[in-house]
């Protein structure tokens, strides 16, 4: 008795390739999903315990980034200001606003106040703000128009490929040091020429040689 009819061959061939195809599709879609703006939380405003607005403080009021992020030029971490910095103004300004009550309460009681991190790199990546800021990488290059964000969101996906875009060719992104904190700065038409000139001036090594070594970020 014949169990498998001749057409079973066809079924087998199709399903064998079918399985391969399905697996490949699955892997490919996982990879796409992993890099997707959804997974990377790009363009998704991150809720904070109080509706602190960069749009208001950095935008309308025109406060400098470094008023709060004091360590950005000296340290790996750009630091979130101590509550004392907030209360320095808010003891007077909008002191009774309901919106800042949680902050005020924490400042008075000494309770911990937890912000939610927006730009969160994996623990095996060591990013240093100070060296980037000192070599002419502007805030807005990575963080986008913070001064237009009522609640901050990521504008970049923070993948390694994205980091390498600049590490391989810094000339495409560098700006003069004095423009680093300028949120309005736009790259000029001759950016590459400017970038090359700045790389020389700031002693930035040619990316291909030095800046792409693994130990630059991983250790």
């Amino acid at each position: 008795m014949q169990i498998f009819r001749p057409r079973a061959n066809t079924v087998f061939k199709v399903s064998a390739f079918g399985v391969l195809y399905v697996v490949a599709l699955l892997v490919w879609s996982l990879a796409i999903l992993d890099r997707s703006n959804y997974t990377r939380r790009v363009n998704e405003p991150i809720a904070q315990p109080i509706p602190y607005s960069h749009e208001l403080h950095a935008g309308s009021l025109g406060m400098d980034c470094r008023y709060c992020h004091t360590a950005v030029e000296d340290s790996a971490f750009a630091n979130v200001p101590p509550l004392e910095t907030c209360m320095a103004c808010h003891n007077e300004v909008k002191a009774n606003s309901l919106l800042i009550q949680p902050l005020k309460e924490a400042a008075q009681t000494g309770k911990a106040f937890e912000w939610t991190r927006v730009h969160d790199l994996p623990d095996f990546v060591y990013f240093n703000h100070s060296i980037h800021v000192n070599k002419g990488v502007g805030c807005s290059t990575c963080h986008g128009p913070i001064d237009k964000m009522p609640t901050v969101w990521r504008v970049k996906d923070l993948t390694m490929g994205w980091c390498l875009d600049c590490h391989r060719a810094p000339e495409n992104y560098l700006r003069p040091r004095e423009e680093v904190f300028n949120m309005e700065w736009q790259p000029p038409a001759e950016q590459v020429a400017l970038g090359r000139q700045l790389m020389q001036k700031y002693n930035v090594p040619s990316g291909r040689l030095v800046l792409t070594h693994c130990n630059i970020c991983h250790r």
Partner: protein
Amino acid sequence: MTTKTHKEHLDLAAIRARLAEGNGQTFWRSLEELAGTKDFQEFLHREFPQGASEWEDGVSRRNFLKLMGASLALAGLNACTRQPAEKIVPYNVPPPIEEVVPGRPLFFATAMPLGGFATGLLVESHLGRPTKVEGNPNHSASLGGTDIFAQAAILTLYDPDRSTGTTTAVEANWKAFLTAVNPQIAAQRATQGAGLRILTETVTSPTLAKQIEQLLTTFPQAKWVQYEPVNRDAVRAGAEMVFGQAVATHYQLAEADVILSLDADFLVSGPGNVRYARDFANRRRVREEAKEMNRLYVVENTPSLTGGAADHRLPLRASQIESFARALAKALGIPDETNPPLTPEVTKWLNAVANDLKNHEGKSLIIAGEYQSPAVHALAHLLNQKLGNIGKTVVYTAPIEAKATNQSKDLRDLSNEMASGKVEALFILGGNPAFDAPTDLKFTQALPSVPFSVHLSLYRNETSELCKWTLPEAHFLEAWGDARAYDGTASIIQPLIAPLHAGKTAHEVLALLLGRSDQTSYDVVREYWQNNLTGNFEAAWQKALQDGFFEGTKAEEKGFAAQIKSVPASPSINAGAGNLEVAFRPDPTIWDGRFANNGWLQELPKPLTKLTWDNAVLVSPATAERFKLQRGTVVDLSYLGKTVSGPVWIMPGHAEDCVTLCLGYGRTKAGSVGSNLGFNPYTLRTADAPWIGLGLDLVKTNQDFQLVTTQEHRNMEGRNHVRVGSLAEFIKDPESTKHSEHSGGAEGEGHGNLSLYERFPYEEQKYAWGMTIDLNSCIGCNACTIACQAENNISIVGKAQVANGREMHWIRIDTYYEGGLDNPNTYQQPVACMHCELAPCETVCPVEATVHDDAGLNQMIYNRCVGTRYCSNNCPYKVRRFNFLQFADETTPSLKLARNPNVTVRTRGIMEKCTYCVQRINAARIEAKKQGRDLQDGEIVTACEAVCPTQAIVFGNINDPKSRVAKLKAEPHNYGLLEEINVVPRTSYLARLKNLNPALAPEEKAPEHGEHG
């Protein structure tokens, strides 16, 4: 206790015969290697022995595959889940120190007391969390280096076993204690403190001494007793014998040309050892331009690192060392009534040493060991005076201890008083006397009968169990205090963090007894110095906090006249019925037992034996042959009516007819790490014979115990990796170490730039990182291994995993022996990743998880690694470490605080290895780049280089001809390990040189070497 069923027997006689033939290899690492046992062969041919790669948790292969499949699927899914939200918690009010910048560490000066004596430290703090200990370069006892104990202090601080409950419970306990203690104080006040006793460890702290003095004024009948098991009673008694009073002796090793150690392990233990090691090594840095070095003779019972560093070493039973000292005294013209019997070989050795000492009057030095009898110390004083060394290599000062007492006698009196019911209130401030008091004092038996007993302790240990009250003690990194260094410098102990478990200090308990319960230890310490400093106090105090010590508090050099001309015969000590001798020693890594719960120290291979997690009965090969003992044979040791059982370790170079027992093991209440490991030699130890006992009886049992050693792991197949020469040869021909018979015949020649791969032009780069390790300075103290562990978040794996060859230390110290079994030469060689320019590991990695950067670093990228272990397989130096299991504890909250935030914590399945401390390189490079300048030599200091007491390790830029490392690499005795295989290692070694006394140089070598200078 794990028992090994199958065990190969070593034929020591055959090994001896083979060594005597002299046609075997020059260097060997263990008896097992010489015998070529099966176990050893396995370690040799498979870097990880059989079974090390398998998962042995009783899970079948089938289940394993199922789990693997499931975890793979999960891992795939994991990639598309979104990152969990992380919180940022800012300061509410920033600390008053302006320099606190999140992301930048701060360093605070403090000091670590051990045995009462302080070593100055600088402790790295990340936002208020101490993570790494460094030496204080300006502190006289440190000069920038530290020992292993200071490095491991971080782990003790964060030890979860220290916790005795919630902070609330501890505070409630303290309140209850206050209620209970006040009636006691009142009652004692009524009797002038007749029933009040204070038991402390050795006190050098001026503040604590002042408080105790006040206490004894308030309670005139009260008594203060100091006791610690590793005390300096013999040192004090020896000085009293000669000078009629206690005198502190310091050594100026920088001035000494010829040094004789009488059983003194002065390079790695005892007050001032870190400083002594530096001074000693400074006189051994032989360079082409400076071909001079000191000469060290060591007479010792138990092979030690100081013995290993010696130019000539003589093994002698501990009890015979006094005879040796007497004979030496006689030879140098000090009358001696006793006529000690010495063998002709010993006499020949002695005469050669005596002549050498005589020829170096005023530039010689005799150091007596703390574990020797008072008579040996007295003889050393007389000899140093006779040789005109006083004021030159030997300096006398008043005692550094607040009160130098006979600790054993005082503890005996206290025990008797406790037993007779005289003691009503006993305050034990630190220490663990119920575990470590001499067994004949019956302290432990008397303790429960004390009506009101209080133990202030880091852990709830054996003593706490027997006391009515336990008070959690603040660790020295959590507390204010002070202590004196070996030379008397008053060092300040300042806290890096508030007490994690609401601990108290001895200062606070004493303040309470003095009716000042409101005082914190900060108040007490500050008040003392306010009363004892002249001039502007605030300025002086701030300066002391910055420096770590009070300037000008070093003890003054004093002259003391010897009151005796000769040393009378020592009283005979109580001997047992057996025919062996026993020597007690503090354990090299867990000391007297206080560090038993510190996993870093437990897993640190002990010098020479490379044992981990255990102590052993050390015997010489000859004694082992006589009793037919093998490694791991369990023996019963009986001595004065007490018996203890332990496994044997055959120790080449050990004195014959003597066993050495390391104290500190056999703890029952140490904590989850340190309890029930090893056996407890304290049960044999008596107050009269704390270090040397006579008449021990050894009975072999038919049991075996698995001792775990790393000595046979990561062996490099019998090639000669240490190069050794003599100073005389080096003076004649600086290239001599390259072609001596010790170099393994490799001639030190690589094969030029031959390579199948295109060579990267490293010499054209600005930086090329490299390292040199000077084997002539290295004493093998292990500080680098543990500093690396602290700096790089290296996990411990436990005894069972060490047995599988899975230990994780990035830098290991290889010990090599040369010569016969009875007195081999010993060499130490630290080995870490060599950062080969043509790295064999890189070419075999299928995922490029290990690659080079332009400065020559062999980078290890954890997030790329998939765990094939090909790299480790292809590494000629066996320096790569694999996380076979999840070794890093990622759950215990307190251990998270201990980690270096700048180094990734590795998970299971990841390869890791020395990175040349790339986090430190990056930090320095970023700073330099921000300032727009080049990196300077010495700006990057690796963790191993920073801690090294002898500065044997130098790191720097080999492309800069002016850097220290480039200059060292140009020295004629610089060589690369296995450089003949052309991997171009970036780490190189300076050969070990011996400054041999021609009168003692091995005879067969004489014609080849010609005359010695």
